[in-house]
Each structure stands twice: as structure tokens, then as C-alpha cells.
């Protein structure tokens, strides 16, 4: 739900208040940088992309109508930009629901716990880096950033069911990687 503070901050930004835009940046830059860094695997790419994202935010703030929170709106812009970048770079990623829903060969499921109860964060970071972009995006938004599935769906432009299936797929893949 959009807050009055969001709308006020957006309005101040639209009015050309440079301090307000810096406030917006400070509120969201860390989380967005983490997301983009993990999506691209490169600090340099993340820096360049975030610069472009905030420039787009500055240009498009007039289009922010408050239908979603400012944070969700920013994440949508950032994720779109990020996925476009990856698609252009690797020519293999598609944001379409079809590609996100693409079925892959089922991996055998172990019938006993195979992941240590205390996973090293470094190991998890490495495992996340190997995920396909579609399920990586949903996993990062849901399990790392803490968005609900309806918000993930809004950010990625997919259905809530697709968000759930992508997070499930990511968890299964991470489980398989971390068990090795």
C-alpha cells in the first residue's frame, strides 16, 4: 500500500527538489544495489545499471501515480533494466511468463536433509550466482529482499503463481547445489 510519505517524497522530487531525490536515493540505493549486483554478478555492471536506473527514475517520476509503493515501483524499474541488460548481454534471458514458466527436467529429490542447517553465506551467494535469471530474480526478491509473492509478481510482471513456482524452482536448485 502506498504511503503518504511516498507520495510526498515523489511530489517533492517532481517539483525539482534535489534534496528529496537524494533522500529517495539514500532510502533505496543499498537494497537496489544488492539486488542488481546479485543479478549481474558484477559490481561494475551494478554501478552502471543503478546510475541508469536512477536517471530513469528521475525522468519517470511524473508517471508514478501511487498505485504501488514507491519501493515496488523502483524495484520494477530496476529489475526491468537489469533483465534488459542481461538479455542484451547474454541473449538468452526472457522476462516473458512463458520463459519463466518453462519446464526443465526434474531433478531427483533427496529424501533426507542435504543442506547444512547453518549454510555459509558465502556458499549461498555462490550458489545464487549460478541460478537462471528468471528464478534468480524471483528468489532474490522473495527470500532475500522479503517481498510477498503478490509484490514479486507486480515487480516482474508475472502472475503470483509464477512467482511461487519460480521461488520453488530456485530453492530446489540451490538445495541441489549446496548439497554437493
Amino acid at each position, binding site marked *: 500500500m502506498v504511503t503518504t510519505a511516498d507520495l510526498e517524497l515523489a511530489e517533492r522530487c517532481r517539483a525539482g527538489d534535489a534534496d528529496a531525490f537524494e533522500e529517495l536515493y539514500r532510502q533505496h*540505493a543499498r537494497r537496489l544495489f544488492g539486488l542488481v549486483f546479485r543479478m549481474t554478478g558484477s559490481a561494475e555492471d551494478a554501478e552502471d545499471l543503478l546510475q541508469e536506473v536512477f536517471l530513469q527514475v528521475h525522468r519517470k517520476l511524473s508517471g508514478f501515480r501511487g498505485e504501488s509503493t514507491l519501493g515496488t515501483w523502483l524495484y520494477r524499474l530496476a529489475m526491468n533494466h537489469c533483465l534488459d541488460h542481461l538479455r542484451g548481454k547474454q541473449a538468452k534471458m526472457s522476462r516473458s511468463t512463458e520463459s519463466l514458466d518453462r519446464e526443465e527436467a526434474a531433478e531427483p*529429490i533427496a529424501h533426507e*536433509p542435504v543442506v547444512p542447517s*547453518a549454510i555459509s*553465506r558465502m556458499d549461498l*551467494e555462490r550458489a545464487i550466482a549460478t541460478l537462471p535469471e528468471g528464478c534468480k530474480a524471483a528468489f532474490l526478491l522473495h527470500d532475500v529482499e522479503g517481498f510477498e509473492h503478490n509484490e514479486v509478481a507486480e515487480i516482474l510482471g508475472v502472475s503470483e503463481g509464477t512467482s511461487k513456482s519460480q521461488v520453488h524452482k530456485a530453492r530446489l536448485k540451490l*538445495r541441489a547445489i549446496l548439497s554437493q
Partner: protein
Amino acid sequence: MNCERYDDVLDDYVDGARAASRPADVRLAAFEAHLPGCLRCQALVADFSSIRRTAADLDEMIPPPRLWAKIAASIDADAQMPWWRRTFGDAFSAWVPVAAAAALVLLVAGVAWFSTTGRAVPPQVASTTPAVTAVTPAEQNYEEAIAGLQQLADAQKPSIDPMTLAVLQKNLAVVDRAISESRAALMNEPASAVAQESLLDALDTKVALLQDTVALGAESVDQ
């Protein structure tokens, strides 16, 4: 055992959903009844919970301090950029003169067509209307915009590449002729909505050309 049918509720369960707090969710209740007897689902719940806990606790990544400075600089540079370049990108720059020329060709063709059709109107229409037409509010707005833009364009002219400037001035001269012809047509047929529209189109084209002149001048100063 076909546990896959519970996969979506298994993830809900890992995320903290419980049937006790969601009494309407019969599938979640069924999964909770299924879980104690299923090693596969128990293993998935344990492993997914471990992954989820660690994921929520991953290190925060701090963007380099220079990033805000770069963003602020790019916003400043953006503010100096012509509106059409912001909107359409760099590739559009090369097409400005072509687009202006194409618009002019259409405009001149339109004026010529209206002049031709205007001659077909019976003379008594003109004779029953006043000889001098009033300036419409829209026309007045265009004239004011043109006066302001003309001043800006005059100031930017020294910065524009002479060949580009020559093309723009030639186009402006054509538009001015089109405006004069449209006004003359309106004098003859003041009630003609088509003639009025033709005049407003010509004025609109002149505004666009002057905007391009100002934008090209600003761009040249930036470079």
C-alpha cells in the same frame, strides 16, 4: 507417494503459513497432515527453511560513495539535454532535419490541397461572412509561443552549425509562406474549419521548428 501436488503449499509452509491461522486453506491443512509421515517433504522443509534463513541474512551490499555523485551529474546533464533527445535518444538527433523536411512536404501538400478545394466553394459563402476574421484563442496561444521561441532561437543561432541553420531557416521560410497562405484562405473563407485547421497546423509546425532550433543550439553549446 505423489508429494509434488503439495509443492506450492510446502513453500507457503516454509514461509511461515500455518493452517491454524488460515482455516480456509484446506490444502495447507492437508499438507500439515501429510508432513509427519513423509520424509521427502520433511527434508525439503528443513533444507528450504535453512536456505530461506540464510538468504534473509545475507550481507548488505553498499554502493560506492561515488555512485550518488555520478547520478547527480547525469541528472544535471539530462536537464540540459533537448527534450526530444531525452525522449527518443541519441539516434533521433540525426533525423531531426529529415523529420522537419518531411513534415514540411506534408504541410505544403496539405495547404496546396486546401487551396485547390477552397476554389470549389461557392462564392456566396464568402460574401455572407465578415471580411476580417477574429484571431482564435488557439491562434493567439501559438503566436505568443512563437514570439517567445523566436527570441530564444535568435539567441541560439550563432551556436548552430551553419549548414543545419540554413536548412532550418529555409524550412521556417516555407512555413511562414504556408501560414500566410492559410491566413489568406481564411480571409476568403472565415467559416472554413479546414482552413482554420490548416493555419493551426502551420503554426504548430513553426513552433516545432523553433523548438528544434533552440534545442540544436543548446546541444551545440553542451558539446
